[in-house]
Each structure stands twice: as C-alpha cells, then as structure tokens.
C-alpha cells in the first residue's frame, strides 16, 4: 500500500463521497487509522459537510433496500462505483499496464499515458519523453489523473522521476516535490524541478533550476524546454525563443514541431509590440544598411539611447555625403534632447568631406556596416587594421570599429579618439570600459572611484543609456563585495536609467543573471536568470537580496 499522504487523502475523500470500491475503501480506511493528517482532513470533510447541511448520500451510491437500525447486525454497503483506476483507464486517461507476460510482479510496468499531455512543461522520466501534444485545459487544468495503484507501484519501485512527473501532471505538486527530494542530485532532477516550479507559477525559480540542469547537461532537452518556458514567463520572449531554437534544431519527433510553433508565435507577438520591439531593431538595422529610411524623431523620443547608438553607426556607415545628410533630422532631435549640437556637427562634418576622402571612406564605411550588422567574419580585425593607417578625417569610423572589435589593447586608442570628440555620450562609455577593466583585474577600489566619478555626471536622464551601464557596473562591484545596501541602490539606479532610456522591452533590457547565493553554476557564468528589473524588485522585497549576483551582459550591448 502506498504511504503517500496525498494519494491516501484522495482515497479518504473518495470514500467519503461514495466513489470507491470496497477494496479501495478498505485501503483508505486502513490508512486513516494511522494517519493523523488524514484524520484531520476527514475532520475538514465532515465539517464542510456540516456547513453544507447535506446529510444524504448521493442517489447513485445509496444502498438499495436500506433498512432501519437493526441491533447487533453489521451490514456492508456496496458502492456501485468501479475502481477509480479502472474508470480512469476506461476514460483513456492514465493506466498502468504490465509489459511482457502478465502477472509477474517483479516486471517493471510500462506507464501508458493519454494521447495528449495536460501540462506544458517537460519531464525527464523516459515514460514522459515520448512526445504527446499539449492539450490546454480551460482555466488552468487539474492535469492528468493517475490511478492510485500506478502511483503506489512507482513508489514501491523507487522510480521517483516517473512518480514525480506523474504526480505533477496530475496537479499534485507537493507530492511531486517530495518525490524529487528523494532523487539523487543531478541535471535530471534539476530539469524536473524546473518543471515543478513552472507548474507552481515560480518562473524565476524554474529558470534557476533549469540553468543548473543545463550547467551539468547542456543539451538536456527537458531542461532547455523548461528554461524557455521560464524565460517566456518572465517576459523574456526573445531569449526564450532562442533557447527553444535549440530544441527545434535537435529535431526530436513532435517536440521539435511544438517548439517551432511556440517560437513562431512568440516572435510574432514580439514583432507586434510597436516601437519597443524587434520592429525597432529591424528599422534601426535597415537605417544602417541603407535598406530602409532613417529612424524617426518619434523613435528618438521613445528610445533615445538605442537611437543614438544606431545613429552613430549609420553616420559611420554612410557611403556618401547624401547618406550622411539624410541623418540630419535625427541628429537635430538627439541634440535637442541633450542640449548640445554634437550630433548635428558630426553629420555636417561627414557630409562636407571632400570627394577625395570619400574615395577611401566609402569602402571602409561599407565594411563598417558589415561589422555592425554582424556580417564581418573576422570580427572587425581587418577593418581596424585598414583604419590604423587612415587619416584623421576617418577618426569617427576608427572609433566605431575599435569599440565594436573590442579588446583591452585598443582601450588607449579609443580613449584618445573619444577625448577628441568631447562628447559625453562617448566619454561615459570610456568610463564604463575603464571601470569594467579595473573590476576584471580585481582593482575594486580604483574601479569604484572611476565608476562613481562617471556616475556623478549622470544627472537626470540626459545620458540614461550610458548611465544605466555605469549603474550595472557599480551594482556588480558592490554585490561582489557583499555591500548589499549600495548594490541595491545602484540596482534601482539602473532600473531608473533603463526606463529613462526607453529600454524597457526585454530584448533591450537584456537578461541579467540574478542568482543570489550562486555566483556561478558548474564553473561557468550564468546568463539570464531574470531581467535586471526583476532582480531589483526581488532584492527590494528581500526575496533574493541580490547577494552575489552575477551580471553577465548578453551579446549586443
């Protein structure tokens, strides 16, 4: 007999409702004699019944020929309801059937599941690995009912992974969690835990569990699946879709198709979210590539930070004076926002370059476009080399290429070029890079001085995009020193600056690790536990407390 209180609770309730056979009633009542929890629950059943004022049993289970009290006579009523398990099987829900020759108790039973699954998540147990389409139940669903006999058998066999999956699919999360607790630690258990957390509505915890699973088993499909659902639940549709792309690529029958459908739907939903969406990025890239018009004043108002980033890329990528001049309206708006004339001056300067300069600049500008748009196979190394010999008239291009190509050896040259611009937009970038480099080398005190000095210029929302990044670095600095008060303060600053920059959508507010007590999983940095804002909120509520959060920026910042 199973000793799982949840299952036996269910039995006791069904006995009370007259929905059990004699055999199952006997099991329920045997357990009731020794289970205080069941007795308490029986008290609840009785109490609810009192409240309802319903004394009569249901018509279909009332025994025929019910007689008045007969002293000394003990009568047994026969409930005319078949075994719960048998009913479930007849209804095509879940049943346990024995594999191979019948009747040998030692043989492992095969778990025969319904044609569709009741939960969107994935479990690692082999019985649940075969694809079954997800059938959405109205109102959230109570899941697949599993016969109590099946659960008991799984428990006896010690097949906790299957037991947990079955219980979770049936909506019995607490029981499933207990089963998981009995399993050996490992990626499989973590992936299943992620599924449980998703079912419980804890997307952040699900993300953490799935990250941990993937740290140990990077291609574990169930973990990828659950991670994608967790990310999607956190509003990180793009990252979620990217994760699910891996499931699509793996090509498992059925699962790949469902993953593809989800990815398509998620991306379509993102594309319809107006300017703060993939559509914005597409438009911005089209501007750089000259396959579309320049971004509009409205774009610059809604997304000042990213618009400014793409504006400079577009100006560097201008193949001739006309292409540069086409950016003048955008430059005027960007200047208006920050109260200077630097963007307009940059447009004017490039548009006024002599024809002889354009001869050299045009091919380099096209190469720069390729670098910005991810089409440069060498990551910009060749372009940087070519620009190393270029005249000062191409310094703007050189700066852009050095920043994109990256590398500490280029920091000094970047700083020199930035100093020549006198543009706070670039100066704050240098401050961030300098601070980040000091952080990397462990010079925390100096990093703090540099970053705090830079952040002192972050008055209001003028340079929100850059200041958000400075705040992130400061958050990292303080979190790594367990200076939580300051860390939280800068987490809040980062959120405020992100909002001011218009970067509120998930694909812009990149996912940041926020794993609290775990600085890394399996020796690698963990990406994307939650959005930065989510981390901030969680820390503010004391739930994650920021702790030693790892902040790993996604590519593209």
């Amino acid at each position, binding site marked *: 007999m199973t000793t799982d209180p949840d299952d036996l*609770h*269910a039995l006791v*309730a069904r*006995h*009370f*409702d*007259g*929905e*059990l056979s*004699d055999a199952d*009633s*006997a099991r329920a*009542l*045997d357990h009731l*004699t020794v289970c205080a*929890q069941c*007795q308490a629950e*029986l008290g*609840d*059943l*009785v*109490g*609810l*019944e*009192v*409240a*309802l*004022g319903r004394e*009569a*049993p*249901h*018509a*279909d289970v*009332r025994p025929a020929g019910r007689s008045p*009290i*007969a002293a000394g*006579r*003990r009568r*047994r*009523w*026969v*409930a005319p*309801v078949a075994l*719960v*398990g048998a*009913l*479930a099987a007849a*209804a*095509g*829900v879940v049943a346990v059937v024995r594999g191979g020759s019948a009747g040998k108790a030692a043989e492992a039973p095969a778990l025969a599941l319904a044609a569709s699954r009741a939960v969107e998540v994935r479990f690692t147990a082999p019985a649940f690995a075969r694809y079954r389409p997800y059938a959405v*139940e*109205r*109102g*959230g669903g*109570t899941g697949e*009912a*599993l016969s109590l006999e099946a659960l008991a058998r799984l428990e006896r066999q010690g097949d906790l992974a299957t037991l947990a999956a079955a219980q979770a699919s*049936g*909506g019995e999360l*607490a029981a499933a969690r207990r089963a998981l607790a009995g399993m050996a630690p490992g990626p499989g258990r973590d992936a299943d835990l992620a599924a449980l957390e998703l079912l419980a509505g804890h997307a952040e915890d699900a993300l953490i569990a799935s990250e941990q699973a993937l740290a140990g088993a990077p291609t574990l499909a169930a973990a990828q699946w659950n991670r994608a659902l967790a990310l999607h639940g956190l509003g990180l549709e793009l990252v979620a879709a990217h994760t699910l792309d891996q499931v699509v690529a793996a090509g498992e029958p059925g699962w790949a198709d469902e993953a593809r459908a989800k990815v398509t739907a998620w991306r379509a939903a993102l594309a319809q979210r107006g300017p703060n969406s993939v559509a914005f990025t597409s438009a911005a890239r089209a501007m750089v590539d000259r396959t579309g018009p320049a971004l509009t004043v409205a774009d610059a108002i809604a997304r000042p930070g990213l618009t400014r980033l793409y504006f400079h890329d577009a100006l560097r990528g201008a193949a001739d004076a006309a292409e540069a001049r086409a950016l003048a309206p955008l430059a005027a708006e960007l200047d208006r926002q920050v109260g200077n004339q630097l963007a307009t001056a940059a447009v004017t300067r490039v548009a006024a370059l002599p024809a002889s300069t354009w001869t050299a600049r045009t091919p380099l500008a096209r190469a720069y476009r390729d670098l910005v748009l991810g089409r440069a196979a060498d990551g910009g190394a060749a372009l940087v080399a070519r620009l190393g010999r270029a005249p000062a008239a191409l310094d703007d291009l050189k700066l852009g290429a050095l920043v994109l190509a990256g590398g500490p050896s280029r920091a000094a040259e970047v700083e020199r070029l930035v100093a020549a611009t006198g543009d706070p937009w670039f100066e704050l970038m240098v401050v961030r890079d300098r601070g980040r480099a000091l952080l990397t080398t462990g010079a925390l005190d100096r990093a703090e001085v540099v970053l705090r000095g830079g952040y002192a210029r972050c008055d209001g929302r003028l340079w929100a995009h850059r200041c958000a990044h400075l705040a992130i670095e400061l958050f990292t600095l303080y979190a790594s020193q367990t200076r939580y008060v300051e860390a939280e303060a800068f987490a809040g600053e980062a959120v405020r600056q992100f909002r001011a920059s218009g970067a509120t959508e998930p694909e812009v507010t990149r996912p940041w690790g926020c794993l609290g007590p775990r600085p890394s999983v399996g020796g690698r940095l963990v990406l994307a536990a939650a959005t930065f804002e989510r981390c901030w909120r969680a820390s503010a509520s004391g739930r994650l407390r920021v702790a030693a959060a790892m902040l790993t920026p996604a590519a593209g910042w």
Partner: protein
Amino acid sequence: MATKLCRGTFDAEDLAQDVLLKVVHQYDRLPPGTNHAAWMARVMRNLFIDRLRARASRRPAIGLDDVVVAAPPPEEPAWWEELSRDDVRAGTAQLPDELRGAFERFAFDGQSYKEISAALGIPVATVGTRVLRARRRLRVILGGRDDD
C-alpha cells in the same frame, strides 16, 4: 453524515446512534454557546476513527464506554464550525472556474462523480481531483489552514 463515513465498513445507523447517546450523556456538560452540530460532527468523526482503529488492531468491536472522545469545548473552534451553506457557496464562488464547476454540481446539486463526468465531459478521476482540490482551496478561502 454517518452513511458517508461508514460506507463499506460499519453500520451508519449504529454510529449515528452512538453519537446520539454520547450527546445525551454529555449534553449537560457542554459549555453555553457550544455549536452542537459541530460538536456532534467531531464526536462522530472521533468515534468512527476509533472504530477503525479497533478493527485494525483486531480487537472486538468496542462499546461506547470504551471510546475516548476528544474533549468537547474548550477546544479551539474548527474553521468550519460557524459556516453556513451560504458561506460555503460564497467561498465556492471564489474558486477557479473548473474547480467551481465540478464542486457546485457535487455539493449543491448533489451530482455524483459519474454524473459530473458526463456533464462536463471529463474523466471521473478528474472529477475526483477537482472536488478534492476544491475542498482544499475552500478550507483556505473559508479561513482554514493552508498546509502547502
């Protein structure tokens, strides 16, 4: 109530009679203001469990005098003691749609699992799960403990 507890085990009327005898014996000792229906329900549950225990230990069926009944008040009132049918109905209204649908039919319309299964087009076992979950949620909604 006794019939629900006793299905397939003891004679419900016998249990009910024992409860009534207990009430008669102890009625004078109940403090003023005692919720009689609630107290009787507790007595019944306790007698029922005691009978089960006796059966499990293969002792002969014990008489009323052997039964130790949980002390009547002063005991902290159970969460359901002051509830009326209307209270339960109000609590039911707060349940999620699917739990409410199954539970209303079960508790207020008197339908069996099987009838609900047919009406809602869901398996009988799912009806059981929904009714069970509805009760657990009601316990929380109506002021009971939350054991999760």
